[in-house]
Each structure stands twice: as C-alpha cells, then as structure tokens.
C-alpha cells in the first residue's frame, strides 16, 4: 500500500514548494516591484515638521524697512484634549455660537485627525489675542501659536512689494522640485514673487516618527535627516519710500501711474500705480475679504499699471522720433517746418497741429508740433537708400528697440508687458505689400500702433538724459550676503542706443528744456532746477467710444548730470500739462531738494492731491457696484427680518444698530426697502459681520489717518 503511494510524496513536496513560490511571488510584487507601499508607509509613519525661517526684510534706499515681519497668533486646537474646555466662554470671546464651535471642531478632526493640532481661528487681532491670552487656562486643548506675518510699516508701495498667499495646486505642480507643501505661503506678486528664492530662506525639516494614532514617538533616526532653517536674505531697494509716498498721495483719486528712475544706475526711485491699496490689508485676518473687494473694484487696484498696462506714449514719443531723425540724417538741427494747421504730407489733413508757425527741432519739441515730427517720420520711412517703407521701418525699429521699447525691459518684477513697436508685417496685412509711410503716420506723434509701458517711457527719459545709454531699470540694489542666485547681473550691463551721437541728444535736451520754459509744460517748472520735460496728450477709445485724453509727462532733471528721470501718466485726465506735469515737477523737487518747503509749492501739493480725475466710466461702474451691493444687503436684511419674525414674536427692543452707525453710503441711492427694515431689530450677534462689511468699502486707499502717521514716521 505504502509502496504504491510512494510517488505521492513527490506530489506533496511539489504542493509545498508551489505554495511557497506563490507566496514569494506575491512578496516580490509587494516588496520589489511596487513602490506605493513604501510611499504609504512613509506617509503613515513619518511626520515632517517644516521649520519656517523668517522671510527677508526689504529696505528702501535710505535703509528704512518697508516690508518686515511681525508675529501674529493663531488659536490652535487639539480636538482630543478639549473635554475640559469652557466652550461658552471661548465662544463668547470669539463671537461665535456653539453650533459654529462644533462645526469647526468637526472640521479640524476631519482635516487633521483628533490627535493633531489644527488652526481653529487664524491670525487673531491684537485685542482678541489679549482677551484669549488672559483666559487660556480655561481652555485646555487650545494653544496660541505664533505665526510670522508680513508687515508693511509705511503702508505703501503695495504693487511693488507684492503680497504673500497660500500656494495652490497649480503652483505646487509648477514648482515640484522646490519643496513647497500645501499650506505654505509664497510671494504672489511684486518683489515678494520675483525674489521669492532670496526672501524665503531655506526651510528646515525635522522628521518625527508617529504611531497609528498620529502621536509623535520621537525623532526619526536620531535626527540625522533633519535640516536647519536659515533666514531669508534681505533686499536693499533703490526705491525712496518718501518719494513713493508723496507720489501715491499726489495720485489720490486719479487713475494712472508714475515711474521715476535714477538715470545713472537704472535704479527705480518710485513706482506708483494708482489707485493703490494699503498692503497691510492683504496680510491680516481679513485678507480674504479685502482681497475680494479689491478684486472687484472697477479701478483695478491690483494691477500694477507701471508694468502691466501699455499705453500710446503720445507726444513724449516725439523726442525719440526727433533723435532718430537726426541720427539718420533726414533732418539736421536747423531744419525747419512751417505748420498752417495740419500736416500736408499725406493729403488728408492729419495730424493737425495746435500752434501754427515755423519750428525747428527745439521749438517743435517745446511746442509739441505734430506737423514737424510727421515730416521727420515720413522722411525716415521714405528714405531712398532703404528701398521701401518696409526696410526703412526696420531701421527705425532698430533704433526704437535700442531705447528699450517694443521688448520687455527685463525689470526685476513679474508680469511686465512688452509694449509694441509695430512691425511692417502689420501694415502689409492691413494695406498690402505696397504700403507707404502715410499709412502709419500717426506713429510719428506716439499715437497709432506704438504702445509702451510707463516704465519703458521713464527709461526713454533716462536714456535721453544720459545721451544714449541706460541700465535696465530695477528695484533691487543689493542683496544681503551677496547675489547668490545671480539675479542682479542683468542690471549691471550698460545698454547703448543704436549709434547716435550725443550731440543729437543735446538738441532734444534744448527742446525739452524749452517745453518747461516757454512750451507746453510751462506750468510745471521746478524753482531753481533746470528740468527737461515733454508733455503728452493721448486720444483713446473704449469700445469705440472716444474717452477723455490720457495725460502724459516725461522728464528728467537736472539738465546737467541728471539724477532723476520720470514718466507720469493719468488716465483720462485731459491735457498732459494740467495734471501729469505738475505731479512730475513736485516729485522732481521732492527728490532733488529732499523736501518741499516753499508754502506755494506745498499748496500745489494739496491742490494736486485734491484733484479728482477718476475716469467717468469707472465712476459709473463703481456706482453700479455700490447700488447692487446695497440691494443685496437690503434683501439679506429682509430675509433676516423674516427669520426673526418667524422664530419668535420678540423684537421691539433697543434701537437698531443700523441707525446708530449710519453706513457710509449715499442716501439718495438707498433702496426703499432699507428704510423700513431696520426698524425691527435682529440679534446683535448677526449684526457683527455687517459692521465689518461697511468697513470694507474703504479698503482701497490708505486712509488719511494712516498717511499722517507715516509722515510722523518720516520726521523721526
């Protein structure tokens, strides 16, 4: 019997081996071929605590910190330890009800589990922090955790400095290698974004082991994989914070932008984009609220107009046309033109000129004579030696590019626009291959297809001031501890204009000085300083409807050894001489004389500050938005009212808070619903958010009180 079954011992051995091989196969699959288990184990057991370094500080040219760090506090909860907490007391301090409390606890548990801490209330206001700090003993399971927050002590240069925000998934995908994690903050705009690498410092990571309930068990491998955090490096700007503040003040209630450059270095002295906002509004607890109100503002305060908007440069472009005309030899300094009201060269009576008379280059610039520059431009494009307008335009463009026009300058700020110096292909498309100079004659006076950013325009002024060279405009002068990422070397390269003799610039300087002394910019002289300037007034259209002209002014001063080149632009403000020119002159005076002391000039500051030049279309959009908001508010109040009525018959108690604090809205547009609803009171708890709503409307501009504070700061 047993002999008969001997072979079965083989079978049994084979069964044993087979099953063991199957097991080994699965082990091979689990341990060798699939990496997901390793990753899951990592996320199970390793807790990476990121040690955040302090971000770098940003200083202005005098060494004043204009962007620094402060500490704010988060209220942090560990849900598993809150059994003893005095919930009611906490709720009353935070101004929430118990159902909201429970909801937040639940959210914290869902987000981070019961055993780990999560933020319960972020970025406490100082008052709230003080009240909580006194009472913390009542709230076991809660702690106040420090969080570094950016602070802008001068409340200025919002668009230049930029702001931080939490990274989103798109950002994480783009910057996969740089160690960002969900919940990290990164610079979103301005210098915060451009110099993120420098400012952020190096994060430290501490690795901890944690158990199945998320409790920390100790450091991983004795901390041998931990890294230390090193603080971010500080930036020293060429920006002058006082100039920046004065510029912002002068641009109150105007839409436009100012850029001033030190022509010797290319360092930007101020960069104003108006309307601006108090940058501190985008750091604190109400960041989101402020952001959305800024975001929907029809005046687009979040756009940096100095770089992110392009405009036709208008007559300020004539200076460039004049220089190129001299360089190409189509005119000389003594060439004259007589204008009888319009430019006759193209036969359609365009462009017109304002002052009739006979002009040479100097007086043509001083009086901004359209006819003169149309002639120059036409001659430039009709030069026989280049064959046709196509090649002649290419030559012209080469000059224009060498002034930094038509391409991105490469300033150290994100989202710079490149402007436009039109190519012949555009005209070929429009007018066929036989197009002629008359097709694009309006470029001669900076209208037409020519587009520049105001920074480019300021750079043109600097180039003219330097008689033919410029450094790429930039904000950051030096980086603490050296330029490790090689970010500043592009700003140490001197750019020369295309083969233009300095003497040609001399002629343009004469004209620009004339502008200030007897020409279009006479109203904008600076006492005691020889300023060279050029006004511009630019026709513009919105959806085909002609709007009020944009006002431009470009200038540099003093004429000899210029120290400041400036470009000012006010949207829809009319003549360049009436708004943009005085602003430029005040800024030049402020910068060169360090302060404005003459009472007459001080009065001028006040006069310009009080000018309200908000474009009509924006005013209309704002009014629409306000009334929409009011209607929504009224509807919400009505609904609340209904709810209160439904729930109980109580009600006639204290007078409405709404009447006690009249909201800053124009009474004439208030919908009728509003006057009736507030009579009945709702609960005070519900009113609290409404008060904040009314505060929010003023978020756009730093209010006067703050500005005064800043001035005090200056004197110190």
């Amino acid at each position: 019997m047993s002999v008969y079954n001997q072979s079965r011992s083989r079978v049994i051995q084979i069964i044993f081996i087979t099953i063991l091989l199957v097991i080994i196969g699965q082990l091979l699959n689990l341990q060798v071929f699939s990496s997901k288990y390793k990753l899951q184990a990592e996320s199970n057991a390793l807790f990476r605590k990121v040690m955040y370094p302090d971000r770098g500080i940003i200083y202005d040219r005098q060494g004043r910190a204009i962007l620094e760090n402060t500490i704010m506090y988060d209220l942090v909860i560990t849900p598993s330890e809150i059994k003893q907490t005095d919930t009611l007391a906490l709720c009353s301090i935070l101004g929430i009800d118990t159902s909201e409390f429970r909801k937040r606890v639940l959210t914290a548990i869902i987000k981070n589990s019961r055993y780990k801490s999560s933020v319960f209330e972020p970025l406490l206001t100082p008052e709230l922090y003080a009240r909580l700090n006194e009472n913390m003993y009542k709230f076991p399971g809660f702690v106040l955790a420090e969080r570094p927050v950016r602070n802008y002590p001068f409340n200025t240069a919002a668009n230049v400095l930029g702001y931080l925000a939490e990274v989103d998934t798109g950002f994480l995908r783009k910057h996969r290698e740089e160690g960002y994690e969900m919940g990290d903050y990164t610079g979103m705009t301005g210098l915060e974004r451009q110099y993120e690498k420098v400012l952020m410092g190096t994060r430290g990571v501490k690795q901890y082991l944690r158990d199945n309930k998320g409790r920390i068990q100790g450091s991983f491998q004795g901390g041998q994989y931990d890294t230390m955090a090193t603080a971010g490096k500080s930036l020293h700007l060429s920006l002058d914070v006082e100039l920046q503040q004065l510029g912002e003040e002068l641009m109150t209630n105007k839409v436009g932008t100012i850029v001033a450059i030190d022509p010797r270095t290319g360092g930007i002295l101020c960069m104003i984009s108006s309307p601006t906002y108090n940058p501190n509004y985008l750091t604190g607890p109400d960041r989101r609220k402020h952001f959305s109100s800024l975001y929907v503002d029809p005046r687009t305060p979040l756009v940096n107009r100095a770089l992110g908007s392009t405009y036709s440069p208008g007559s300020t472009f004539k200076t460039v046309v004049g220089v190129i005309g001299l360089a190409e030899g189509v005119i000389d300094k003594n060439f004259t033109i007589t204008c009888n009201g319009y430019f006759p060269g193209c036969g359609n009576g365009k462009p017109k000129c304002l002052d009739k008379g006979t002009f040479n280059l100097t007086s043509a610039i001083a009086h901004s004579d359209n006819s003169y520059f149309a002639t120059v431009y036409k001659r430039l494009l009709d030069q026989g030696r280049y064959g046709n307008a196509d090649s002649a335009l290419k030559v012209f463009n080469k000059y224009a590019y060498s002034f930094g026009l038509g391409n991105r300058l490469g300033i150290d700020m994100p989202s710079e626009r490149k402007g436009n110096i039109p190519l012949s292909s555009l005209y070929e498309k429009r007018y066929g291959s036989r197009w002629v100079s008359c097709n694009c004659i309006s470029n001669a006076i900076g209208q037409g297809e020519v587009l520049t950013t105001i920074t480019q325009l300021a750079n043109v002024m600097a180039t003219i001031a330097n008689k033919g060279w410029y450094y790429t405009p930039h904000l950051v002068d030096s980086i603490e501890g050296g330029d490790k990422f090689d970010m500043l070397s592009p700003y140490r390269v001197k750019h020369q204009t295309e083969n233009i003799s300095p003497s040609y610039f001399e002629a343009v300087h004469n004209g620009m000085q004339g502008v200030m002394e007897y020409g279009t910019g006479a109203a904008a002289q600076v006492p005691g300083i020889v300023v060279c300037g050029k006004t511009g007034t630019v026709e513009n259209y919105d959806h085909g409807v002609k709007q009020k002209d944009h006002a431009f002014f470009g200038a540099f001063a003093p004429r000899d050894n210029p120290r400041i080149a400036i470009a000012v632009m006010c949207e829809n403000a009319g003549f360049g001489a009436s708004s943009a020119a005085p602003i430029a002159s005040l800024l030049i005076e402020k910068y060169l004389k360090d302060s404005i002391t003459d009472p007459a000039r001080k009065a001028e500051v006040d006069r310009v500050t009080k000018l309200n030049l908000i474009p009509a279309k924006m005013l209309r959009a704002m009014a629409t938005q306000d009334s929409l908001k009011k209607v929504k508010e009224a509807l919400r109040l009505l609904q609340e009212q209904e709810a209160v009525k439904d729930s109980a018959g109580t009600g006639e108690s204290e007078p409405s808070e709404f009447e006690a604090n009249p909201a800053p809205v124009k009474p004439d547009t208030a919908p009728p619903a509003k006057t009736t609803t507030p009579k009945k009171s709702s609960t005070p708890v519900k009113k609290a958010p409404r008060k904040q709503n009314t505060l929010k409307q003023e978020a756009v501009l730093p209010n006067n009180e703050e500005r005064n504070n800043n001035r005090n700061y200056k004197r110190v």
Partner: protein
Amino acid sequence: MATYQNKSISEGIDWLIVGIYAILVSIGIMCIFMVEYKPDTDWLSSFFSGKTNYSKQLIFAGVCVVVATFILLSDSKLYTAFANLLYAFGILLMLATFVIGKNINGSKSWIPLGGGFNLQPAELCKIFTALALGKYLSQLDTDFTKLKSHAIATAIALSPALLSILQNETGLALVYASFFIVMYREGLPGTILVVGFSFGVLVVATLVMEPNLLAIILTLIAGAVIYFLRRSIKRDKGVLIVVLLLWVGCVGIQRFAVPYIFNNVLHCYQSQRIYSMVGKDYDCSLNKSAQKMSERDKVAKKPDDYNVRQSKIAIGSGGIMGRGFLKGTQTRGKYVPEQHTDFIFTSLGEAFGFTGCVIFLGIYALLLLRIVVIAERQRSTFSRVYAYSVASIIFLHIAINVCMTIGLFPIIGIPLPLISYGGSSLLTFTILIFIMVRLDADRQMVLR
C-alpha cells in the same frame, strides 16, 4: 546510568529538525522583540523582567525545552497506546468548552486554567487527531482503498474541525483540512483533491466575476466538453449525463450555493473579508446574521480592510533589503494590528525585506521537506502518517498565515508556527514536532 540515558536520548534523533526548531523559535522571539521594542526603555532588563511579551515568549520557550526533553525521554509505544484515548479526551475537552469555556476575542474556545493561563483544546486536538489518524490508518484491518475507511478517517479528522466551527474558530477548523493531504498520501483518490481544488476555483470565480458571465463561460465549457467527447457520448450516453450533471452542479453552486453560504452561513464580517481579498465590497444588508443583528437594533460590526492594508504596507515598505533590525517605522508606530501574534510576519518583512523573507521561507521549506523525508523513512505506518500530519499542519499554518498578511487569503486568526507570540501555540507545535522526533528516533520499530 547517566551515560546510558544520555546515549539513549540522543540516539537516532534528527538534529537537523531540532536545529531548525531552535532557529525558528529564536527568530520568533526576535520578531516579538522588534514589535515590542521602545527605544527609550532598557531592553535588557525588561527582557528578563517577564513583563513584556518577548520575555514571556522566552519563558514559554524554556517550558517548551522541558516538555521536549520529557517527550524525548518517553517511550514511543506510549503514543500508539494512548492515541485513541487522547483523541477522546481532546474531543471531550472541546465539548467542555461549551459549558465552562471562556470567551476571548469573540470565540468561546478557551478553558481557563487559573493564574492567567488559558488552554485552547482545539490547539491540542491537532496533536491528538494526528495521533488518532495514525493509529487508525496503521491498524492491520484498515484497508484504505475502501470508501468506508475513507469515511472513518475523514470523520476522525473533521470532528474537531466541526467543533471548532461551532466555537467560532474558523481559522483553527481550516487547519484540519491539512489531514486530507495525509490521507492523500495514504491512498485517498487524487480526484477528491482535484475536485476540491476545482470547487475552490469555482468559488473564487464566483466572487470575482459577474454571475451571468460566469454562467455563460461554464455553459461554453460544458458545450466544448460535449463536442470533444461526442464520440464517447455516442458509445455511452452516461458520459453525457455526467457532463450535464457537472454543469448543472457548477452553475448551481455558482448561482445559489455560494451566495447562500455568504449570506446565510458566514457572518457579515467573514463575507466582507473574503470579498475584500478579491478587491470587492460585500453588501452586508444581504447577510442573514447582519439582518438579525440590525433587527436587534445593533449595528453589525463593519470592519474594513484596514488590517490587510496596513499589513501589506508594512511588508511592502521593506523593499529588497529591508529597513534593518528595529528600524521599521510601521512596526514602531504600531500600525499593524495584532502584530505580535497573527501578523508577526509583517515585522520580519519590514525589517529584513524580500531577502529576509525568502531566507525565512527557505528555513520553513527546509523544515517541511525534512519532515517529508523523515516520514518516508519510517517503517511503521503510524509514524509515517503522524509525520505527514505534522508537515501538513505546519504547512497549512504557514500558507494561510503568510497568505493572509500579504493579501492572498482572507483574514483568519491563525498563528505562524513557532514564531507568533502565544504559549499555547508554541507548546502545541513543540509537542507536535518532538513526538515526531521521538518516533523517528525509533524508526526501525514497527508501531501499531
């Protein structure tokens, strides 16, 4: 006298088995140590304090050495003489659990012994059943070619299994299936194993596939078989009937029997575990016992696949070379439940990786194959049957336990032989192995 005794103990003993046994027990203690280790405690003193599980296991190992020595000192004839008696005693103990049993982890299969020790008769019964089966098969009047003796042998093997199921110890009951391997060796027709295997395939297929699709496939197979056998069918209509009956049987199992078992026989959590193994969800509302539970207004326990997932993560994170001794993060973080008992393999897999696992399984393979070699060199049927029983029991334990930790088998509480923490289990395997070593030492004798 002493020298004589020494000689008689060591004579004929297979030291290879003893060596492998010692290695495995040491690995076991090391694994438990890895699971329990805390970096900030003085492990040396806690090793001898007797309070931690690894030191307890060390004590159990000491007890086992004593027991093993006694077994080696005993007379082989003892085991044939007492086989049936012990078996009866074992069955009695198992029955006794229904009366005086203690409920541990939901199964009423333990008899409290006092002093915190509990005895699980089902564990001991494995030994007794092995002995009893050997005894029965080695009887001169047993002709194992007969159906009757098949039935008796099966009854001997499966009665403790049945009692185990009633005690809610499915895992232990499953181990008794190992006796079929022994019976196969002794002449049980191979077709029974094949049929059993096919049944298993059918059940798994039922779980994995759409019922209708599977029915179609079965029908197609039946059709193909009829087509290929059409000649023999012409000669003998009986073949056709057999094929059709098989077809009806398979479809019946697939359509009715398996769902019936899952819904009415098994508990909700058992069905869920089996379904989760093939990567599917089981709807507990179909389950009878769950319905009964919810009728009693109790929410039926709904365990997910947390255990398997964590176990697979721990093993998978080991990689090729492992994380190293005491460096397993999953083990340290206690992510795997029951890691010192049923899931002990995970700590090994994490610390020593694929290489360690292969070496470890190699040691097991060596043990199993060595036992088969030992079995085949016995003169007496009793010893051979017993040795095969030992090999099969150990094999089934390993296969089920390891497959469970790597997600190839539903989770069933069954220890890894000689490795898992637990005195009962360690003692059982020690006795099992050393009785075999004792019998092997007397392999020239014919025991009946």
